[in-house]
Protein backbone atom coordinates (compact mmCIF):
# COMPACT_ATOMS: atom_id res chain seq x y z
CA UNK A 1 0.00 0.00 0.00
CA UNK A 2 2.83 2.34 0.97
CA UNK A 3 4.68 1.43 -2.23
CA UNK A 4 1.59 2.17 -4.37
CA UNK A 5 1.17 5.61 -2.72
CA UNK A 6 4.84 6.36 -3.22
CA UNK A 7 4.62 5.39 -6.93
CA UNK A 8 1.54 7.65 -7.38
CA UNK A 9 3.29 10.54 -5.70
CA UNK A 10 6.34 10.04 -7.93
CA UNK A 11 4.16 9.92 -11.07
CA UNK A 12 2.33 13.11 -10.00
CA UNK A 13 5.68 14.79 -9.40
CA UNK A 14 6.85 13.69 -12.84
CA UNK A 15 3.70 15.13 -14.48
CA UNK A 16 4.10 18.39 -12.62
CA UNK A 17 7.74 18.56 -13.70
CA UNK A 18 6.79 17.82 -17.30
CA UNK A 19 4.15 20.57 -17.30
CA UNK A 20 6.60 23.05 -15.75
CA UNK A 21 9.27 22.08 -18.32
CA UNK A 22 6.81 22.44 -21.19
CA UNK A 23 5.65 25.83 -19.92
CA UNK A 24 9.28 26.85 -19.55
CA UNK A 25 10.12 25.74 -23.07
CA UNK A 26 7.11 27.53 -24.53
CA UNK A 27 8.02 30.65 -22.55
CA UNK A 28 11.66 30.57 -23.72
CA UNK A 29 10.56 29.88 -27.29
CA UNK A 30 8.16 32.79 -27.27
CA UNK A 31 10.79 35.05 -25.71
CA UNK A 32 13.39 34.12 -28.30
CA UNK A 33 10.80 34.54 -31.07
CA UNK A 34 9.90 38.03 -29.88
CA UNK A 35 13.51 39.13 -29.45
CA UNK A 36 14.48 37.49 -32.72
CA UNK A 37 11.67 39.22 -34.57
CA UNK A 38 12.81 42.53 -33.21
CA UNK A 39 16.40 41.80 -34.13
CA UNK A 40 15.58 40.76 -37.67
CA UNK A 41 12.84 43.19 -38.40
CA UNK A 42 13.93 46.22 -36.43
CA UNK A 43 17.37 45.21 -35.22
CA UNK A 44 16.61 46.17 -31.69
CA UNK A 45 16.31 49.87 -32.37
CA UNK A 46 13.19 51.86 -32.28
CA UNK A 47 12.57 53.05 -35.81
CA UNK A 48 8.89 53.73 -35.47
CA UNK A 49 7.56 56.99 -34.25
CA UNK A 50 4.35 57.41 -32.27
CA UNK A 51 2.37 58.12 -35.43
CA UNK A 52 3.41 54.74 -36.89
CA UNK A 53 5.94 56.38 -39.19
CA UNK A 54 9.51 55.14 -39.40
CA UNK A 55 12.22 57.54 -38.33
CA UNK A 56 14.82 57.97 -41.05
CA UNK A 57 18.44 59.01 -40.54
CA UNK A 58 20.54 60.56 -43.30
CA UNK A 59 24.24 59.78 -43.50
CA UNK A 60 26.73 62.61 -43.22
CA UNK A 61 29.09 64.27 -45.67
CA UNK A 62 32.41 66.06 -45.18
CA UNK A 63 32.76 69.80 -45.08
CA UNK A 64 35.51 70.82 -47.45
CA UNK A 65 36.79 73.87 -45.63
CA UNK A 66 40.46 73.63 -46.51
CA UNK A 67 42.15 74.82 -49.67
CA UNK A 68 45.58 74.87 -51.27
CA UNK A 69 48.29 76.43 -49.09
CA UNK A 70 50.20 79.35 -50.55
CA UNK A 71 53.96 79.27 -50.96
CA UNK A 72 55.57 82.17 -49.11
CA UNK A 73 57.70 84.60 -51.11
CA UNK A 74 58.90 86.23 -47.87
CA UNK A 75 59.69 84.26 -44.72
CA UNK A 76 62.24 84.27 -41.91
CA UNK A 77 63.88 87.41 -43.27
CA UNK A 78 64.29 85.89 -46.73
CA UNK A 79 62.72 87.22 -49.83
CA UNK A 80 62.30 85.32 -53.04
CA UNK A 81 61.59 87.04 -56.30
CA UNK A 82 59.96 84.80 -58.87
CA UNK A 83 59.19 85.40 -62.55
CA UNK A 84 56.81 83.29 -64.58
CA UNK A 85 57.43 83.54 -68.32
CA UNK A 86 54.19 82.94 -70.22
CA UNK A 87 53.64 82.60 -73.96
CA UNK A 88 50.24 82.97 -75.66
CA UNK A 89 48.78 81.97 -79.05
CA UNK A 90 51.13 79.09 -79.87
CA UNK A 91 52.17 76.62 -80.83
CA UNK A 92 53.38 77.92 -84.18
CA UNK A 93 56.54 78.23 -86.28
CA UNK A 94 58.24 80.39 -83.59
CA UNK A 95 57.64 77.94 -80.76
CA UNK A 96 60.63 75.64 -81.48
CA UNK A 97 63.00 78.62 -81.23
CA UNK A 98 61.44 79.73 -77.95
CA UNK A 99 61.82 76.19 -76.62
CA UNK A 100 65.45 76.11 -77.70
CA UNK A 101 66.25 79.38 -75.88
CA UNK A 102 64.46 78.23 -72.73
CA UNK A 103 66.38 74.97 -72.80
CA UNK A 104 69.66 76.84 -73.17
CA UNK A 105 68.88 78.82 -70.02
CA UNK A 106 67.35 75.87 -68.18
CA UNK A 107 64.06 77.72 -67.71
CA UNK A 108 60.60 76.19 -67.64
CA UNK A 109 57.72 78.35 -68.86
CA UNK A 110 53.95 78.30 -69.22
CA UNK A 111 52.33 78.10 -72.67
CA UNK A 112 48.73 79.29 -73.15
CA UNK A 113 47.92 77.54 -76.38
CA UNK A 114 45.20 78.10 -78.95
CA UNK A 115 43.17 75.07 -79.99
CA UNK A 116 43.31 75.90 -83.69
CA UNK A 117 47.10 76.15 -83.51
CA UNK A 118 47.36 72.96 -81.47
CA UNK A 119 45.48 71.07 -84.18
CA UNK A 120 48.19 72.09 -86.66
CA UNK A 121 51.12 71.27 -84.33
CA UNK A 122 50.27 68.37 -82.03
CA UNK A 123 53.97 67.41 -81.99
CA UNK A 124 54.84 70.77 -80.42
CA UNK A 125 52.30 70.34 -77.62
CA UNK A 126 54.04 67.09 -76.77
CA UNK A 127 57.49 68.71 -76.96
CA UNK A 128 56.35 71.52 -74.64
CA UNK A 129 55.22 69.01 -72.01
CA UNK A 130 58.15 66.64 -72.50
CA UNK A 131 60.60 69.48 -71.86
CA UNK A 132 58.95 70.32 -68.53
CA UNK A 133 56.89 73.36 -69.51
CA UNK A 134 53.27 73.70 -68.47
CA UNK A 135 50.51 73.40 -71.08
CA UNK A 136 47.69 75.87 -70.48
CA UNK A 137 44.67 76.92 -72.55
CA UNK A 138 43.78 80.03 -74.49
CA UNK A 139 40.47 79.00 -76.21
CA UNK A 140 40.09 77.54 -79.69
CA UNK A 141 39.48 80.61 -81.84
CA UNK A 142 40.54 83.75 -79.91
CA UNK A 143 37.43 85.27 -81.48
CA UNK A 144 36.19 88.15 -79.29
CA UNK A 145 32.64 88.18 -80.66
CA UNK A 146 32.16 84.45 -80.34
CA UNK A 147 33.72 84.24 -76.89
CA UNK A 148 32.21 87.30 -75.22
CA UNK A 149 29.22 88.57 -77.19
CA UNK A 150 26.89 85.57 -77.12
CA UNK A 151 25.22 86.60 -73.86
CA UNK A 152 26.66 83.76 -71.78
CA UNK A 153 29.90 81.99 -70.87
CA UNK A 154 28.91 78.87 -72.80
CA UNK A 155 31.03 79.47 -75.93
CA UNK A 156 34.02 80.49 -73.81
CA UNK A 157 33.81 77.39 -71.64
CA UNK A 158 33.12 75.06 -74.55
CA UNK A 159 36.20 76.35 -76.38
CA UNK A 160 38.39 75.92 -73.30
CA UNK A 161 37.10 72.39 -72.85
CA UNK A 162 37.78 71.60 -76.48
CA UNK A 163 41.32 72.93 -76.15
CA UNK A 164 41.71 70.98 -72.90
CA UNK A 165 40.81 67.79 -74.75
CA UNK A 166 43.43 68.51 -77.44
CA UNK A 167 46.15 68.82 -74.80
CA UNK A 168 44.98 65.62 -73.17
CA UNK A 169 44.99 63.73 -76.45
CA UNK A 170 48.48 64.93 -77.33
CA UNK A 171 50.10 64.54 -73.91
CA UNK A 172 47.80 62.74 -71.47
CA UNK A 173 47.84 65.83 -69.25
CA UNK A 174 44.56 67.36 -68.09
CA UNK A 175 45.19 71.04 -67.59
CA UNK A 176 42.73 73.40 -65.91
CA UNK A 177 44.69 76.62 -66.30
CA UNK A 178 43.27 79.07 -68.81
CA UNK A 179 43.97 82.59 -69.95
CA UNK A 180 41.12 84.62 -71.37
CA UNK A 181 41.89 86.01 -74.85
CA UNK A 182 42.34 89.81 -74.49
CA UNK A 183 42.51 89.33 -70.70
CA UNK A 184 39.68 88.91 -68.24
CA UNK A 185 38.87 92.61 -67.85
CA UNK A 186 36.64 94.30 -68.65
CA UNK A 187 34.71 91.69 -70.64
CA UNK A 188 34.48 88.94 -68.02
CA UNK A 189 31.96 89.97 -65.38
CA UNK A 190 31.02 88.12 -62.21
CA UNK A 191 28.28 85.82 -63.58
CA UNK A 192 30.69 84.80 -66.36
CA UNK A 193 33.35 84.06 -63.74
CA UNK A 194 30.84 82.03 -61.73
CA UNK A 195 30.49 79.73 -64.72
CA UNK A 196 34.25 79.50 -65.25
CA UNK A 197 34.76 78.54 -61.59
CA UNK A 198 31.87 76.10 -61.78
CA UNK A 199 33.53 74.44 -64.79
CA UNK A 200 36.63 73.84 -62.64
CA UNK A 201 39.05 76.17 -64.45
CA UNK A 202 41.69 78.41 -62.91
CA UNK A 203 42.30 81.64 -64.77
CA UNK A 204 45.52 83.59 -64.98
CA UNK A 205 45.91 87.08 -66.41
CA UNK A 206 49.36 88.67 -66.01
CA UNK A 207 51.19 91.24 -63.89
CA UNK A 208 53.54 92.54 -66.60
CA UNK A 209 52.74 92.97 -70.30
CA UNK A 210 55.68 93.15 -72.72
CA UNK A 211 53.31 94.64 -75.32
CA UNK A 212 55.15 92.55 -77.92
CA UNK A 213 52.41 93.11 -80.53
CA UNK A 214 53.52 96.75 -80.55
CA UNK A 215 57.21 96.02 -81.11
CA UNK A 216 57.30 93.85 -84.24
CA UNK A 217 59.99 96.04 -85.76
CA UNK A 218 61.62 97.08 -82.51
CA UNK A 219 61.96 94.09 -80.14
CA UNK A 220 64.07 96.10 -77.69
CA UNK A 221 60.86 97.97 -76.85
CA UNK A 222 59.79 94.78 -75.08
CA UNK A 223 62.91 94.95 -72.92
CA UNK A 224 62.09 98.55 -72.01
CA UNK A 225 58.59 97.50 -70.98
CA UNK A 226 60.10 94.84 -68.70
CA UNK A 227 62.60 97.29 -67.22
CA UNK A 228 59.77 99.68 -66.45
CA UNK A 229 57.36 97.08 -65.11
CA UNK A 230 59.48 94.60 -63.16
CA UNK A 231 58.70 95.52 -59.54
CA UNK A 232 56.73 92.88 -57.68
CA UNK A 233 58.16 89.87 -55.85
CA UNK A 234 56.13 87.64 -58.12
CA UNK A 235 55.73 88.61 -61.76
CA UNK A 236 53.71 86.83 -64.40
CA UNK A 237 55.09 88.12 -67.69
CA UNK A 238 52.96 88.11 -70.84
CA UNK A 239 54.52 87.34 -74.23
CA UNK A 240 53.38 85.69 -77.45
CA UNK A 241 54.97 83.12 -79.72
CA UNK A 242 56.20 85.74 -82.19
CA UNK A 243 59.35 86.67 -84.10
CA UNK A 244 60.14 89.69 -81.92
CA UNK A 245 59.79 87.54 -78.79
CA UNK A 246 62.33 85.06 -80.14
CA UNK A 247 64.71 87.90 -80.94
CA UNK A 248 64.60 89.60 -77.55
CA UNK A 249 64.02 86.60 -75.24
CA UNK A 250 67.70 85.95 -74.34
CA UNK A 251 68.16 89.59 -73.30
CA UNK A 252 64.90 89.58 -71.34
CA UNK A 253 65.99 86.48 -69.43
CA UNK A 254 69.36 88.01 -68.67
CA UNK A 255 67.84 91.24 -67.40
CA UNK A 256 65.20 89.55 -65.24
CA UNK A 257 67.88 87.28 -63.71
CA UNK A 258 70.11 90.26 -63.03
CA UNK A 259 67.32 91.74 -60.91
CA UNK A 260 67.43 88.75 -58.56
CA UNK A 261 64.49 86.82 -59.98
CA UNK A 262 64.25 83.05 -60.22
CA UNK A 263 62.14 81.52 -62.97
CA UNK A 264 59.28 79.19 -62.19
CA UNK A 265 56.74 77.27 -64.19
CA UNK A 266 53.06 77.13 -63.25
CA UNK A 267 52.30 74.28 -60.87
CA UNK A 268 48.66 73.37 -60.16
CA UNK A 269 49.79 72.32 -56.69
CA UNK A 270 51.11 75.78 -55.99
CA UNK A 271 48.38 77.78 -57.69
CA UNK A 272 47.95 81.40 -56.69
CA UNK A 273 45.52 84.02 -57.82
CA UNK A 274 46.54 86.18 -60.79
CA UNK A 275 43.43 87.71 -62.29
CA UNK A 276 42.44 91.33 -62.72
CA UNK A 277 39.31 90.85 -60.61
CA UNK A 278 41.21 89.24 -57.70
CA UNK A 279 38.63 86.50 -57.82
CA UNK A 280 39.86 83.99 -55.23
CA UNK A 281 37.98 81.12 -56.87
CA UNK A 282 40.11 81.39 -59.98
Amino acid at each position, binding site marked *: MVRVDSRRRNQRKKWILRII*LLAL*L*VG*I*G*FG*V*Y*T*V*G*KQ*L*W*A*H*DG*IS*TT*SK*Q*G*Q*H*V*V*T*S*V*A*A*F*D*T*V*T*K*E*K*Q*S*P*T*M*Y*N*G*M*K*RKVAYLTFDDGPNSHTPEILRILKEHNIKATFFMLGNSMQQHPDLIKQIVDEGHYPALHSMTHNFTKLYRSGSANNFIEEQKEAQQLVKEATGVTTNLIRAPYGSAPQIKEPFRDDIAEAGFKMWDWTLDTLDWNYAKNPSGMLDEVKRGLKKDTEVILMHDRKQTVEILPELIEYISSQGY*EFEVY*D*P*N*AHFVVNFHHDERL
Partner: protein
Amino acid sequence: MKSWKNKIGVLAMIVAMAMMLAACGAPSSEKLFSSFEQAASTESAAAAAFEELKQLESRDQKQYDTILDKGERSNVNVQTLITQTMSTLDQRQQAMTKVKDKVTAAYEHVAKAQSQVDKLEPAQGKEQAAQALTAYTKRYETVQQLAAQYEKLITAERALYEQLKAEQTNLKQLQQAVRERNQQWTQVNQLKQQFNQYSEQFNTNKDAFYKAAGIQTDKANSSK
Protein backbone atom coordinates in the same frame (compact mmCIF):
# COMPACT_ATOMS: atom_id res chain seq x y z
CA MET B 1 21.37 11.46 -18.41
CA LYS B 2 19.69 10.40 -21.64
CA SER B 3 16.49 12.29 -20.70
CA TRP B 4 18.47 15.55 -20.13
CA LYS B 5 20.02 15.17 -23.55
CA ASN B 6 16.55 14.84 -25.02
CA LYS B 7 15.38 17.93 -23.17
CA ILE B 8 18.33 19.97 -24.41
CA GLY B 9 17.65 18.73 -27.93
CA VAL B 10 14.00 19.78 -27.71
CA LEU B 11 14.99 23.16 -26.30
CA ALA B 12 17.51 23.73 -29.10
CA MET B 13 14.89 22.85 -31.69
CA ILE B 14 12.39 25.30 -30.20
CA VAL B 15 14.99 28.06 -30.14
CA ALA B 16 16.02 27.38 -33.75
CA MET B 17 12.43 27.27 -34.93
CA ALA B 18 11.63 30.50 -33.13
CA MET B 19 14.58 32.24 -34.77
CA MET B 20 13.66 30.94 -38.18
CA LEU B 21 10.10 32.05 -37.63
CA ALA B 22 11.29 35.48 -36.60
CA ALA B 23 13.61 35.71 -39.59
CA CYS B 24 10.89 34.72 -42.00
CA GLY B 25 8.41 36.90 -40.23
CA ALA B 26 9.54 40.29 -41.61
CA PRO B 27 9.32 41.08 -45.30
CA SER B 28 12.56 41.89 -47.20
CA SER B 29 11.66 45.58 -47.49
CA GLU B 30 11.38 45.80 -43.68
CA LYS B 31 14.67 44.00 -43.22
CA LEU B 32 16.38 46.32 -45.69
CA PHE B 33 14.87 49.32 -44.00
CA SER B 34 16.20 48.01 -40.74
CA SER B 35 19.68 47.41 -42.22
CA PHE B 36 19.88 50.86 -43.83
CA GLU B 37 18.60 52.70 -40.79
CA GLN B 38 20.72 50.76 -38.36
CA ALA B 39 23.76 51.66 -40.48
CA ALA B 40 22.81 55.34 -40.59
CA SER B 41 22.06 55.29 -36.88
CA THR B 42 25.42 53.68 -36.05
CA GLU B 43 27.14 56.40 -38.04
CA SER B 44 25.44 59.13 -36.07
CA ALA B 45 28.07 58.47 -33.40
CA ALA B 46 30.61 59.90 -35.88
CA ALA B 47 28.86 63.28 -36.08
CA ALA B 48 31.21 64.76 -33.48
CA ALA B 49 34.25 63.49 -35.40
CA PHE B 50 33.00 65.09 -38.64
CA GLU B 51 32.51 68.38 -36.83
CA GLU B 52 35.86 68.13 -35.02
CA LEU B 53 37.64 67.53 -38.32
CA LYS B 54 35.99 70.57 -39.86
CA GLN B 55 36.96 72.76 -36.91
CA LEU B 56 40.56 71.50 -36.82
CA GLU B 57 41.06 71.92 -40.56
CA SER B 58 39.61 75.40 -40.47
CA ARG B 59 41.85 76.37 -37.55
CA ASP B 60 44.91 74.93 -39.32
CA GLN B 61 44.21 77.06 -42.37
CA LYS B 62 43.99 80.24 -40.28
CA GLN B 63 47.09 79.40 -38.24
CA TYR B 64 49.12 78.69 -41.38
CA ASP B 65 48.27 82.13 -42.76
CA THR B 66 49.19 83.70 -39.40
CA ILE B 67 52.52 81.83 -39.33
CA LEU B 68 53.44 83.15 -42.79
CA ASP B 69 52.35 86.63 -41.87
CA LYS B 70 54.09 86.88 -38.49
CA GLY B 71 57.11 84.86 -39.60
CA GLU B 72 58.03 87.15 -42.49
CA ARG B 73 60.93 88.77 -40.66
CA SER B 74 61.92 85.91 -38.40
CA ASN B 75 60.48 82.50 -37.66
CA VAL B 76 61.57 82.87 -34.01
CA ASN B 77 58.34 84.84 -33.56
CA VAL B 78 56.20 81.90 -34.60
CA GLN B 79 57.90 78.88 -33.01
CA THR B 80 55.17 78.44 -30.36
CA LEU B 81 52.40 78.85 -32.89
CA ILE B 82 53.99 76.25 -35.18
CA THR B 83 54.33 73.80 -32.28
CA GLN B 84 50.69 74.37 -31.33
CA THR B 85 49.53 73.89 -34.90
CA MET B 86 51.58 70.71 -35.26
CA SER B 87 50.02 69.27 -32.11
CA THR B 88 46.59 69.39 -33.73
CA LEU B 89 47.77 67.27 -36.67
CA ASP B 90 47.45 64.12 -34.56
CA GLN B 91 43.95 65.17 -33.52
CA ARG B 92 43.00 65.57 -37.18
CA GLN B 93 44.27 62.08 -37.95
CA GLN B 94 42.40 60.69 -34.95
CA ALA B 95 39.17 62.39 -36.00
CA MET B 96 39.49 60.94 -39.51
CA THR B 97 40.18 57.48 -38.05
CA LYS B 98 37.06 57.82 -35.88
CA VAL B 99 34.98 58.63 -38.96
CA LYS B 100 36.44 55.64 -40.80
CA ASP B 101 35.83 53.28 -37.86
CA LYS B 102 32.21 54.36 -37.46
CA VAL B 103 31.49 54.05 -41.18
CA THR B 104 33.16 50.63 -41.16
CA ALA B 105 31.10 49.50 -38.16
CA ALA B 106 27.96 50.86 -39.78
CA TYR B 107 28.71 49.04 -43.02
CA GLU B 108 28.47 45.71 -41.19
CA HIS B 109 24.71 46.25 -41.05
CA VAL B 110 24.33 46.40 -44.82
CA ALA B 111 27.22 44.15 -45.89
CA LYS B 112 24.91 41.16 -46.35
CA ALA B 113 21.85 43.03 -47.57
CA GLN B 114 22.21 42.02 -51.21
CA SER B 115 20.17 38.84 -50.65
CA GLN B 116 17.28 40.96 -49.35
CA VAL B 117 17.51 43.25 -52.38
CA ASP B 118 17.36 40.19 -54.64
CA LYS B 119 14.14 39.09 -52.97
CA LEU B 120 12.38 42.39 -53.66
CA GLU B 121 9.91 42.78 -56.51
CA PRO B 122 10.51 45.69 -58.93
CA ALA B 123 7.36 47.38 -57.62
CA GLN B 124 8.80 47.32 -54.10
CA GLY B 125 11.64 49.63 -55.11
CA LYS B 126 14.17 46.94 -55.99
CA GLU B 127 16.15 49.24 -58.28
CA GLN B 128 16.33 52.08 -55.74
CA ALA B 129 17.31 49.66 -52.96
CA ALA B 130 20.07 48.23 -55.16
CA GLN B 131 21.34 51.71 -55.97
CA ALA B 132 21.29 52.69 -52.30
CA LEU B 133 23.26 49.57 -51.43
CA THR B 134 25.79 50.21 -54.21
CA ALA B 135 26.24 53.82 -53.11
CA TYR B 136 26.75 52.77 -49.51
CA THR B 137 29.28 50.10 -50.46
CA LYS B 138 31.25 52.56 -52.61
CA ARG B 139 31.06 55.10 -49.82
CA TYR B 140 32.51 52.55 -47.43
CA GLU B 141 35.32 51.76 -49.88
CA THR B 142 36.00 55.47 -50.40
CA VAL B 143 36.38 56.18 -46.69
CA GLN B 144 39.01 53.44 -46.45
CA GLN B 145 41.02 55.13 -49.22
CA LEU B 146 40.37 58.54 -47.72
CA ALA B 147 41.72 57.55 -44.29
CA ALA B 148 44.90 56.17 -45.90
CA GLN B 149 45.32 59.26 -48.05
CA TYR B 150 44.66 61.53 -45.08
CA GLU B 151 47.61 59.96 -43.31
CA LYS B 152 49.81 60.98 -46.25
CA LEU B 153 48.39 64.50 -46.08
CA ILE B 154 49.17 64.74 -42.37
CA THR B 155 52.74 63.55 -43.05
CA ALA B 156 53.10 66.26 -45.71
CA GLU B 157 51.59 68.88 -43.39
CA ARG B 158 54.04 67.90 -40.67
CA ALA B 159 56.99 68.16 -43.08
CA LEU B 160 55.83 71.63 -44.11
CA TYR B 161 55.58 72.85 -40.50
CA GLU B 162 59.00 71.33 -39.74
CA GLN B 163 60.36 73.39 -42.65
CA LEU B 164 58.68 76.54 -41.36
CA LYS B 165 60.12 75.90 -37.91
CA ALA B 166 63.71 75.14 -38.99
CA GLU B 167 66.30 77.81 -38.34
CA GLN B 168 68.05 77.17 -41.66
CA THR B 169 64.90 77.00 -43.77
CA ASN B 170 64.90 78.48 -47.25
CA LEU B 171 62.14 79.56 -49.57
CA LYS B 172 62.87 77.00 -52.27
CA GLN B 173 62.55 74.13 -49.77
CA LEU B 174 59.42 75.70 -48.35
CA GLN B 175 57.90 75.90 -51.79
CA GLN B 176 58.69 72.24 -52.37
CA ALA B 177 57.06 71.32 -49.05
CA VAL B 178 53.97 73.36 -49.94
CA ARG B 179 53.72 71.62 -53.32
CA GLU B 180 53.98 68.20 -51.72
CA ARG B 181 51.31 69.13 -49.18
CA ASN B 182 48.99 70.53 -51.85
CA GLN B 183 49.43 67.43 -53.98
CA GLN B 184 48.26 65.24 -51.10
CA TRP B 185 45.49 67.70 -50.28
CA THR B 186 44.15 67.57 -53.85
CA GLN B 187 43.77 63.81 -53.58
CA VAL B 188 42.14 64.04 -50.16
CA ASN B 189 39.76 66.66 -51.47
CA GLN B 190 38.80 64.50 -54.44
CA LEU B 191 38.08 61.56 -52.14
CA LYS B 192 36.03 63.76 -49.80
CA GLN B 193 33.94 64.95 -52.73
CA GLN B 194 33.53 61.38 -53.92
CA PHE B 195 32.43 60.34 -50.42
CA ASN B 196 29.95 63.20 -50.32
CA GLN B 197 28.48 62.20 -53.68
CA TYR B 198 27.95 58.64 -52.45
CA SER B 199 26.39 59.98 -49.23
CA GLU B 200 23.92 61.97 -51.28
CA GLN B 201 23.21 59.02 -53.58
CA PHE B 202 22.62 56.73 -50.61
CA ASN B 203 20.28 59.17 -48.86
CA THR B 204 18.32 59.88 -52.03
CA ASN B 205 18.02 56.27 -53.16
CA LYS B 206 17.04 54.91 -49.78
CA ASP B 207 14.31 57.54 -49.50
CA ALA B 208 13.09 56.59 -52.97
CA PHE B 209 13.16 52.92 -51.98
CA TYR B 210 11.11 53.57 -48.82
CA LYS B 211 8.58 55.46 -50.87
CA ALA B 212 8.32 52.71 -53.48
CA ALA B 213 8.07 50.04 -50.76
CA GLY B 214 5.29 51.98 -49.01
CA ILE B 215 7.29 52.54 -45.84
CA GLN B 216 6.05 55.70 -44.20
CA THR B 217 8.93 57.77 -42.98
CA ASP B 218 9.53 60.67 -40.71
CA LYS B 219 12.59 62.66 -41.75
CA ALA B 220 13.41 63.98 -38.33
CA ASN B 221 16.97 62.86 -38.02
CA SER B 222 20.32 63.30 -39.61
CA SER B 223 23.54 61.66 -38.50
CA LYS B 224 25.16 65.06 -38.63
